[in-house]
């Protein structure tokens, strides 16, 4: 039985929703970061899912883009974690709600 495209999308949506909710509702900044990563990967999944619906020669392009995005996500995770650690060092807290320096 062939995999229906819609199931992939539903899964991606579920993962995205989980990621978003985690990012918004958790106060721990590491969890926020994890939530963001999760949401990103959900989008990748959705991309591949749509790519599968196309004929083979065209679907390659859709499968390459997530590869790029994964590479960039890795870099982003590095930078993000580094920033979080720096902030943690300064503030001695992982609570995202206490980070309000930028408020005017």
């Amino acid at each position, binding site marked *: 039985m062939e995999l229906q495209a819609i199931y992939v999308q539903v899964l991606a949506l579920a993962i995205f929703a989980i990621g*978003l909710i985690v*990012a*918004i*509702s*958790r*106060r721990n900044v590491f969890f*926020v970061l994890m939530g963001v990563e999760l949401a990103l990967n959900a989008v990748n999944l959705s991309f591949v899912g749509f790519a599968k619906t196309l004929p083979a020669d065209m679907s390659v392009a859709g499968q390459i883009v997530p590869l790029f995005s994964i590479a960039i996500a890795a870099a982003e995770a590095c930078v993000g974690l580094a920033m979080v650690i720096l902030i943690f060092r300064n503030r001695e807290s992982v609570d*995202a*709600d206490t*980070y*309000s320096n930028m*408020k*005017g």
Partner: protein
Amino acid sequence: MMNLPLWLIPLLPLVGTILLGAIAVISSGSKKGPSEGMVGFLAVLFPALAFVAVLLLAMGMPVDGIRGTLCNWIDIPLFKADFGFLFDGLSRIMLLFVTGIGALITLYSIGYMHGDRGFARFFAYINLFLFSMIVLVLGDSLLLTFLGWEGVGLCSYLLIGFWNKDVNNCKAANKAFIVNRVGDIGFLLGMLCLVTVGGAGILNYDALNAFIQMILTGGHVEIVLPILSLAGLLFFIGCTGKSAQIPLLTWLPDAMAGPTPVSALIHAATMVTAGVYLLARLGNMFALLPVVLFIITLIGLLTAFWAAMAGLFQNDIKKVLAYSTISQLGYMFMAAGVCAFDASIFHVFTHAFFKAALFLGAGAVIHALAGEQDMRKMGGMLKKTPVTACVMLFAFFAIIGFPGFAGFWSKDLILERLFMSGPLGPAFYVVGLLTAVITAVYMGRLIILTFFGSYRGSKESEEHIHEAPACMLIPMVILAIGAIFAGYFWADSLGITVFSDSLAPVVGAAQASVVHAGAHVNPLIFAGLGTLAALLGMFIALKVYGSARIPEAKGSSAPQGFKASWTFFFDSLHKYCGIIPVSVLAWICDVVVDKILQAIQWTVGAIATILGDGVSTFQVRKVRLQLAFSVACVAILVAVVLLTGGTF
């Protein structure tokens, strides 16, 4: 010596100015200052050279004058002006006495300014003044005359405020300049008026005369009369400013704050007569404008009378002379008003001699008394300074019109012309004669208080009284001689008409155009009446002031009480009509309008700030909440786009 270029005459004092100015600036740092001998020599050299140049040119002048154009000045569409000079009968006479008396007074100043800190600066200003004055009378267009006109005003400002450590001197200088500026704007607008009538080249005197000739022959006087009258009036406003006539006369008495040679040169002999010169120069134009002429006569008459009355109540010796100058200028304007331009220039000429002599004499007295100017503290100077006293006496006889002296000839001529000027002539004549009586009274008072009786100052100061040095006496004596004999250039009753012949090519046409109606009266009657007026005035002065009663000196030399406010009536007029409205306007601008504008500006700024504050409340503290906000907003946006079907 016909090939002497005209531009040489103004150039000479200009070179003097630059040299002396450089000396003044360079030496200002040093303690000792430059050598007075050298500076004095340079200062006299250039005016004297200019006088010689004028003399040489005057000898060989053809009847219709010499014209010379140096170069172009302003050249734009609608308007052209050249640096051109015109040396004719009128400018010849003016130049002769301007440079001559200028050189003499410069010589006198060397003695007067001895030891002053700004010695070189003073002579630089004097030279600059002579340059401007020469340009004023030598210029061949109104614009060039205006250059001199404002230039002499500037020099007058600089010299009145010469002793600038005293703020009061500066204020007097400011007043002189600003009041003059009012008149100058009249002059300026008058020029613009003429340009609209006659086009770009009209400001040249020759072109103007040709234009007027053309109107006359074409019979279009009525067409241009309104605008010409306006121009005439505006020019006359300029003249009232420069020549201290009603209503712009208040600056001249205050101008006495300057050094005395300055008062003699600028505020008596030369600059203040520029107005009369202008009227004569534009004679052809004014002859067409009966209304303006009438106004001029009336203003001259009122000024002469009023200033003579004011002169009666002054205690400062220089202020008496200042008011007497205003009064004499009034005579000149009267004459110009009845188109007797040659008579008015003749009076300018004689007046230059006797008034300069009077001022220099007064300066010598002040010098002798170490700066005292109050006549109530003088007296008995006849014995102590005999030469000065003689000079002053001769000049006194000249100014009151004593037979044989210079003023007699010119004043009688003016009164005679006044009488014959038309239906109102006799009335004018009576007022003029009355003024002559008052002139004799206040001048008699001056002479009596200063030279006769006994000395009324303090004992210590009496010992210091000394006769002036030779370099001051020589110019005074020369001027006194002039005050006696200058009148014989035009002695109608003796049949000498050198003066009027020389002026005839310039102003003759204008005078001929105004027909003198009225019966011919024997000139001897006028002479007799004039003499009578002088004698009567002298007699009154002797009776009132000659008795042993000594007026008391109460502190300052400023006039006091009712007389003071009456004397400075025009000051309050200026105050209420000029200064206060402007200050009120300035106050409104500063305190009301500007504050309102600032309030608007502030309100706009405040609204922007409040809006900014309001928006920034959306920026909540919690990062997660912000994230939630943005997700929600994206959702709403997507919903809106989907629901409206992409209309937005």
